[in-house]
């Protein structure tokens, strides 16, 4: 008879090795993409696609910060609360930089409807207000905080026309845009985690940042691209 304890030790060792392997491969690919950003990162086709994305700040700013995120990602919420206000104060309000959000809804089933809802709010001129509301009231993944009723309640709180918002959500008016953003996140920005940032200037120089870095990282990179 096989010794159950030896089997347990072997099992635990296999799990440990698997975890280390997954960790290593995931992060090695991350480092690789950070060192060699996709050659399409700042190409013309991407610039054209981003033209239709809501922009926070001056459209003529020298630097554009592209944030790839998921409304259910808690690290995105942390970045939203801790780093983003400083960037807005020092770079966006001063006209040096602008911010574009690209949806990568992969964490749960409520991620895609949440992204769609921001564009439905955008139809009524409140994209960034809705975006902020989602991150402010974010809870755990798929625990109902971004259910259809809650998304409608957020729209109501922002004073949106609920009938128009509901119709937009029901008919999936912006599903194609969210799907296109998802593809863009992976293919053009090489994102495989959220938040991922690509900071690009008008000369086409770009720098990728993976993870919810502190303000100091953004300050150094934005200043170098200005």
């Amino acid at each position, binding site marked *: 008879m096989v010794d159950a304890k030896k089997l347990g*030790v072997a099992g*635990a060792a296999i799990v440990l090795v698997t975890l280390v392997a997954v960790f290593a491969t995931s992060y090695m690919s991350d480092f690789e993409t950070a*060192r060699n950003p996709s050659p399409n990162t700042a190409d013309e086709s991407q610039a054209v696609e981003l033209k239709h994305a809501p922009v926070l700040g001056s459209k003529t700013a020298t630097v554009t910060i592209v944030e790839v995120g998921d409304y259910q990602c808690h690290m995105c919420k942390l970045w939203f609360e801790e780093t983003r206000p400083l960037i807005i104060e020092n770079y966006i309000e001063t006209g040096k930089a602008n911010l574009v959000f690209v949806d990568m809804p992969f964490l749960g089933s409520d991620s895609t409807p949440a992204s769609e809802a921001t564009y439905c709010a955008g139809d009524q001129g409140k994209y960034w207000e809705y975006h902020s509301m989602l991150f402010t009231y974010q809870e755990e*993944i798929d625990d109902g905080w971004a259910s259809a009723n809650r998304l409608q309640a957020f729209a109501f709180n922002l004073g949106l026309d609920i009938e128009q918002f509901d119709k937009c959500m029901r008919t999936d008016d912006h599903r194609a845009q969210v799907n296109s953003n998802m593809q863009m996140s992976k293919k053009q920005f090489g994102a495989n985690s959220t938040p991922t940032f690509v900071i690009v200037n008008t000369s086409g120089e770009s720098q990728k940042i993976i993870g919810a870095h502190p303000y100091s990282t953004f300050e150094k990179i934005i200043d170098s691209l200005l």
Partner: protein
Amino acid sequence: MNNTFGIVYSNPSYILISIGIFFILFIPLITISEFLFFEPFLVFSIYPETTLSFSLIVTLSIFSSFAVSLNIYRVKLIKQTKKIGSSIIGTVIGASAGACSCGPIAFSVIATFGTAGSIASSFLTVYEIPIRLISIGILILVIFVTIKSLSRECKVKF
């Protein structure tokens, strides 16, 4: 208990093993939990909301380093492996908590396993703190049992 610690760590190689195990766990854990970044340059940061998570990673790494080094000593002394499995299990449970969150590991898991991966990933994210506390509990138990066993064995041997 102090006496057992003294006996084990009077040998510098066990101190080195403990330090090694601590860093082998600590560096990957703070990297996957986004406290430490290597790109675009080396950055270490803790947001106020993540202080507890960071403290648990430090605690987990310290206890794992004690549990594993004490068990290595025990294996060498009495040639039995029965508690080293528990310390590895405690370490694995603690290490897996929070490893998924929004990072590339979650992306790989969800892309590979679909909905099941998504559920597992969100479970490990939501229950990160309780899972780490359970694993610290397991490690404390392992250390306690190992020290008791070593005290008993040492009395017999010496």
